[in-house]
């Protein structure tokens, strides 16, 4: 299987440089491409120096929240009295996101190296790479790479001959979306039901097995070796707009688009150019209607907003949405926004862990109302009801799954209210929906 497309000239190829090249999957191949130099450098450095370097690079969490990675590492206890853990969140389940899978498929050693550097920085001796269970190919590749890394001494008691010891395990998820939430992931690693935990305590104090833990996304960790190799300054300068967002970002573009796929852009790249230039624009005869930029969990952008949106953390917030995981779902004018929102809500209703009342009951209720609207049985008050339920579901629960259901639905009602009303007032033919 080759990689779907060659890099576009306007992409900034860092993480995706070796996508499509099977050579990169082997230890020797990876070393030949300059791999494991960063790790060798890192283990010779003081952990705090590594943290400072990553802090200076401005690297922010690529899993969705965008929290500065170096600051997160700095939360870990400096005096080590108990085991420390690093978890790599590879449970990429966000609808519309498929960047971590490609990192693991093509550059497994890049991720292993990043994990090892981070582990050294936070003084962790154990790393769990928690991979979404459905990623069978990625799991096989990661396990092979891990075995090879141990064989070649890049992991184990003496990492690359240094005095640093790091163990790394692949932990396979069992198919729950919620296990991508950091504390649910920790419960899952512990063999418990994947329910998010209440915070505080935060993972840096009480994480997996009750020990100080840091959890980072695959893309975040895979970026770390590049930062060490080329310097924080270089990374910090990869920035086209807000100085608070730096580096490159893999955007997974899917939906109604000519060339879907992963595109690596510099932070601050215009969404318009990504859609019309890199991705080849809409399908013939179609026009852009809406974009959900950060996986299905964030507010929808309409055409005007999408075309003026700048792809970095601040640019998305400016348009009232979030960069999230970078899973861009594109809708053209053939899309039925009511149906799409029902489909998204149904996903969250299915995946709610059932802990918090608002989420457990609110997601299902949202779906039923949307299905009623689609069936032509909606009432005039339904939209206000949906918005009110959405408000009750926002900011009141342990994790943000509930907010993630309310955000796209609420924003779609605001921005595409006419489509909802057309179903309600009978202007549009009802759609049969499998309940």
């Amino acid at each position, binding site marked *: 299987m080759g990689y779907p497309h060659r890099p576009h000239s306007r992409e900034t190829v860092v993480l995706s440089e070796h996508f499509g090249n099977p050579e990169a999957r082997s230890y020797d191949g990876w070393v030949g491409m300059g791999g494991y130099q960063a790790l060798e450098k890192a283990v010779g450095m003081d952990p705090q120096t590594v943290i400072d370097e990553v802090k200076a690079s401005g690297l922010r969490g690529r899993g969705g929240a965008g929290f500065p990675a170096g600051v997160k590492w700095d939360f870990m206890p400096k005096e080590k009295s108990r085991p420390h853990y690093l978890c790599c969140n590879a449970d990429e389940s966000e609808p519309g996101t498929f960047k971590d899978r490609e990192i693991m498929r093509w550059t497994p050693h890049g991720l292993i190296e990043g994990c090892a550097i981070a582990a050294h920085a936070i003084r962790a001796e154990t790393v769990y790479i928690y991979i979404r269970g459905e990623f069978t190919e990625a799991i096989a590749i990661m396990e092979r790479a891990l075995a090879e890394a141990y064989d070649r001494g890049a992991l184990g008691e003496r990492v690359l001959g240094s005095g640093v010891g790091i163990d790394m395990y692949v932990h396979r998820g069992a198919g*729950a979306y*919620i296990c991508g939430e950091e504390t649910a992931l920790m419960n899952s690693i512990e063999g418990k*039901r994947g329910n998010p935990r*209440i915070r505080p305590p935060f993972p840096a104090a009480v994480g997996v097995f009750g020990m100080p833990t840091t959890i980072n996304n695959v893309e975040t960790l895979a970026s770390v070796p590049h930062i060490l190799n080329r310097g924080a300054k270089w990374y910090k300068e990869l920035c086209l707009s807000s100085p608070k967002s730096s580096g490159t970002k893999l955007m997974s573009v899917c939906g109604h688009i000519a060339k879907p796929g992963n595109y690596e852009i510099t932070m601050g790249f215009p969404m318009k150019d990504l859609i019309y230039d890199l991705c080849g624009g809409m399908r013939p005869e179609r026009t852009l209607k809406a974009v959900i930029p950060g996986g299905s969990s964030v507010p929808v952008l309409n055409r005007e907003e999408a075309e003026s949106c700048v792809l970095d953390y601040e640019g998305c917030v400016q348009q009232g949405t979030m960069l999230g995981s970078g899973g861009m779902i594109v809708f053209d004018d053939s899309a039925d926004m009511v149906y799409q929102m029902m489909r998204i809500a149904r996903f969250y*209703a*299915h*995946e*709610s*862990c*059932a*802990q*918090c*009342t*608002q989420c*457990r*009951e*609110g*997601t*299902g*209720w949202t779906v*039923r*109302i949307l299905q*009623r609207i689609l069936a032509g049985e909606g009432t005039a008050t339904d939209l206000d*009801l949906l918005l009110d339920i959405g408000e*009750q579901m926002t*900011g*009141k*629960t*342990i994790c943000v799954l509930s907010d993630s259901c309310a955000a796209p639905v609420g924003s779609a009602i605001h921005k595409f209210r006419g489509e909802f009303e057309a179903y309600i007032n009978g202007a549009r033919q009802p759609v049969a929906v499998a309940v």
Partner: protein
Amino acid sequence: MKEQQLVSVTIDGIEISVPKGTMILEAAKQAGVLIPHYCYHPGLPIAGVCRMCLVEIEGAPKLQIGCATRVADGQKVLVNESEEAKRARQGVLEFLLIHHPLDCPICDQAGECELQDYVFQEGQSRTRYSPHFAKRFNPVEDFGGDILYVPNRCILCTRCVRFMDHVADDGILNVSERGDRAYIGMHPDRELDHPWSGNVVDLCPVGSLISKEFLHKARAWELDKTPSVCTGCSQGCNVNLETRGNQVVRIKPRPNLDVNRYFMCDHGRLTYRAMSRGDRLEAPLVADRGELGAVDWDQALSRAAAAIQGAEGRAVALVSPGCSNEALYLVRRLLSSFEMVGAFSVQRVEGEVPLAGVPGLALREERAPNAAGARALGFDTTYDTAVAAVNGAALVVLLDDALEGRELDMLAGARTVIYVGTTLPDAARTAHIVLPVATAAEEEGTFVNRDGRVQRYFQAKSGPAMARPAWWVLSELLHELEMGDPLTAAEEAFEQLAADEPAFTGLSYATIGLRGARARKGQAAGAER
């Protein structure tokens, strides 16, 4: 003790000082503000899942849960004075009622249901959930033991799951499925028959986990609650006897952090059955030409007094460790002029049944509530020796001793036998005088638990017909013998007891209160010798 650091917080305008680290919900309780909640229970680990206790904290960007947020010095918390928090609670209530059936009229929990209470208090009068939408439906499940699970009423607060996981240490319950399809699941090869599992019924804030023993027996608002002490074993769990009319219909634990926290065992719960037994002694009986016949109290007491006055020599007292300290003390006074042999027998069941999560709490081997009191008052367990002493004794007084497994003629060798009891065992039918007394549910009194804690129990119901509290019967008898003034209350008996018995020095009904108390330091009441 290390001095606790205090922080001061203002809750709905009421300023209080609480120890640092206290959760807002607990601090609010102390300020007299009840923050509505479901998943939180002081006896369980915090879950923070029902989201009912959301409160506004001045300066915080969003609402916080009171059960898991620690107070901070100078913090201002708004519960009922925050519109936002109120709206959030209303939202939770509406969400909870989506799948909750409105079957309160046939639900055992009605009247003591936290969902009912809070919806009445501040819920909306109508739901916006369409009646055409499906409600989750799962059939009633028999969890085994005494427990039925009605999944439709379940609000998934997970108190039961956490109790079994962390308190009973027998994690056989879980939350199964996800989203609004979730329900409480049970280990496929197990039943909810843990000896302490009955607590999940108390913990359940709604009528989802219900007791088969109590099913459809009474409405919660018909019940009177009387503080008492469990008679099931020597642990002395604090309980409430819940009566409907003159019948105890169930026993519920009464919180006491020093004894049983919030819990009691299933064995203790079942002791309510014996409180309604039908074979009770209802009138004083005296033997006339070998036949026991009913007489009034005056006759019975004067016959008993005469018999005691005429006796000379050895007296034997066989007492039940289920009797109050007051009664045991008065028996001793009654026999003070004799050379007395006093003993009790206590049923022992091998193997304690601890509740793993609460140190010091177990269903004890000694299955009687006051063996420690009997010991402290000079009765011992050399029961067989005492029984042997019956032969040739001038006087034998039996205080509610069931004479379990004894020969029918065991009392034949004694000159005078007075049986003071709640029922008349076959082996006591040869007694000369039988005086009917009240059970622990029918009188006031005190027990001493195995840890030397003196605890009061109160009268929950009236005794049958002419049965009277043992302290009254014995004090009348003492009066008849000119050995004391008649007593009008159990408290007076206790005052005399506390004055006479070093093990009870310094105690009074007032100092014991509802929580119990130990005797003055260095003289632990009833310490096992």
